[in-house]
């Protein structure tokens, strides 16, 4: 192959192949916007202020991203906004209806043309303020009367332990949210994430919110690329041992992340907003070939869910970070491999076959981000079982000083083995079997699981 003065033709064709044949894209450009200056005791005034601020900063987000996409030839799939946890605004407005804030966020999202807005959130890992409690209680209604608003609740951290009162509440809230949206495939629950160690700069929905330590406005980037990694493994790693496999993943992750870094820098400059971070997470989609499960299978597993899955995922996650961190000056967010079930055709297929179980998924979450994600469970799963599921995930996150999360969708009226389909990026999947041996008395105790010894680092 002839080498150009400035550029190598092989490199150009490889980049084109990654984009056009292997679904490589920038998954999201997420603008974080602080709403701290929008707090007001008057509900209407607060909602006006937050609407105006979001629209003022994000009105050019979609056109700028579309122009970048055209100029650089890389698809930017989602344009989104993450805001300050709304519970922080409710503190000074004791008479306000929290659902009005969700409606205002929805209006702002409609005006600027984004597909999701995150931050209908509360951080309650050590306890509740009155605003937090009001927000939590409003989540089911807020998610049922809006389409674009996403909600997240942080119930634990390594530094503070786990707020088991919040854990108990979240089981009920998830069920209530699913019930209220039962006529829409229980979609409300797909827009609700329960976190331990939630990052404040995560660009991915449904868990994105704009942390209190962030700048006033910031641009964060989430990349994609499972298809590109799988293809690199199939084409270049067939005869390699696992250290060679890790090297191939690292090299591919480097290229993927560099594109994200470029898009972030260009978007920030065009919008007059500082560029925050690139989230290195490999985000799958239901598209054929764009699957984390298929990456693991390309390493030699008959199916994801087999013994060896956790080890393969650990290798993948670590190699993605090592390749990605070199490619970006400022890495942040979740930065791991996502293992959602409904959003990943390979994971969904393995769950269908019964090869991939909830127990195996839980083990996998110990070595990657983000947690039990987009998992459909029977509609009659008791709230305390959901709460206990959250507690187990939070414990894994707390002890290992990493983010974990639970986004499960109780399929109201459906039993294990039936299916639920959301369409689009949220995908579809089987209702998975849940162990319902009762944790009721444990969950009823409430209180806090104290911060672990790992928290005492000073």
């Amino acid at each position, binding site marked *: 192959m002839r080498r150009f003065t*400035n550029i190598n*033709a092989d490199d150009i064709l490889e980049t084109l192949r990654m984009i056009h044949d292997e679904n490589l894209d920038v998954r999201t450009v997420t603008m974080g916007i602080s709403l701290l200056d929008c707090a007001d005791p008057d509900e209407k005034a607060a909602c006006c202020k937050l609407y105006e601020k979001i629209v003022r900063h994000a009105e050019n987000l979609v056109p700028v991203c579309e122009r970048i996409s*055209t*100029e*650089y*030839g*890389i698809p930017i799939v989602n344009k989104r906004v993450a805001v300050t946890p709304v519970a922080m605004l409710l503190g000074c407005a004791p008479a306000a209806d929290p659902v009005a804030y969700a409606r205002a966020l929805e209006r702002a999202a409609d005006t600027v043309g984004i597909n999701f807005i995150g931050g209908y959130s509360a951080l309650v890992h050590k306890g509740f303020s009155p605003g937090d409690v009001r927000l939590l209680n409003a989540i089911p209604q807020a998610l049922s009367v809006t389409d674009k608003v996403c909600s997240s609740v942080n119930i634990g951290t390594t530094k503070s332990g786990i707020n088991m009162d919040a854990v108990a509440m979240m089981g009920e809230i998830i069920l209530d949210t699913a019930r209220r949206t039962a006529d829409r495939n229980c979609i409300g629950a797909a827009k609700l994430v329960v976190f331990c160690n939630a990052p404040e700069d995560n660009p991915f929905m449904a868990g994105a919110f704009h942390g209190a330590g962030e700048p006033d406005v910031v641009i964060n980037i989430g990349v994609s690329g499972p298809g590109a990694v799988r293809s690199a493994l199939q084409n270049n790693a067939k005869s390699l041992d696992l250290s060679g496999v890790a090297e191939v993943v690292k090299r591919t992750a480097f290229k993927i992340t560099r594109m994200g870094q*470029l898009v972030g820098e260009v978007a920030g400059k065009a919008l007059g907003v500082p560029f925050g971070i690139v989230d290195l997470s490999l985000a799958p989609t239901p598209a054929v070939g764009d699957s984390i499960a298929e990456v693991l299978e390309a390493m030699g597993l008959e199916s994801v869910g087999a013994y060896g899955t956790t080890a393969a995922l650990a290798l993948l996650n670590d190699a993605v970070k090592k390749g990605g961190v070199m490619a970006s000056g400022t890495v942040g967010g979740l930065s791991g491999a996502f293992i959602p079930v409904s959003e990943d055709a390979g994971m969904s297929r393995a769950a269908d076959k019964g090869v991939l179980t909830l127990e195996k998924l839980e083990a996998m979450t110990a070595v990657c981000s983000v947690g039990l994600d987009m998992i459909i469970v029977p509609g009659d799963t008791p709230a305390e079982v959901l709460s206990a599921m959250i507690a187990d995930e939070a414990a894994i996150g707390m002890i290992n000083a990493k983010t974990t999360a639970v986004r499960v969708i109780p399929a109201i009226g459906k039993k294990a083995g039936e299916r639920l389909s959301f369409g689009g990026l949220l995908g579809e999947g089987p209702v998975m079997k849940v162990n319902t041996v009762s944790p009721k008395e444990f969950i009823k105790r409430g209180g806090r699981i104290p911060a672990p010894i790992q928290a005492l680092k000073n």
Partner: protein
Amino acid sequence: MNAVITVIGADKVGILARISTLCADNSVNIEEVTQTILRGMFAMIMLVTLPEGITIESLAGKLTEAGKALGVNVSVTRQEIYDVTHKI
């Protein structure tokens, strides 16, 4: 602005001539050209410089049209996307 034009499809007479003419008509300077066979398909890559006032978007529209007439896929993107993915 530096950009890269790629043409991928079945080889036929006149591809280079058509794309080059289109570039000339739009004052787009061709710096380098290479051609190769990619998985049995013809692939041509041109490194070009766009003058002030010509945007990638406007050029892309014309190239896509020309590509359709020739039965090949033509794309144009800024050069930086290739630089960042392959240069440290």
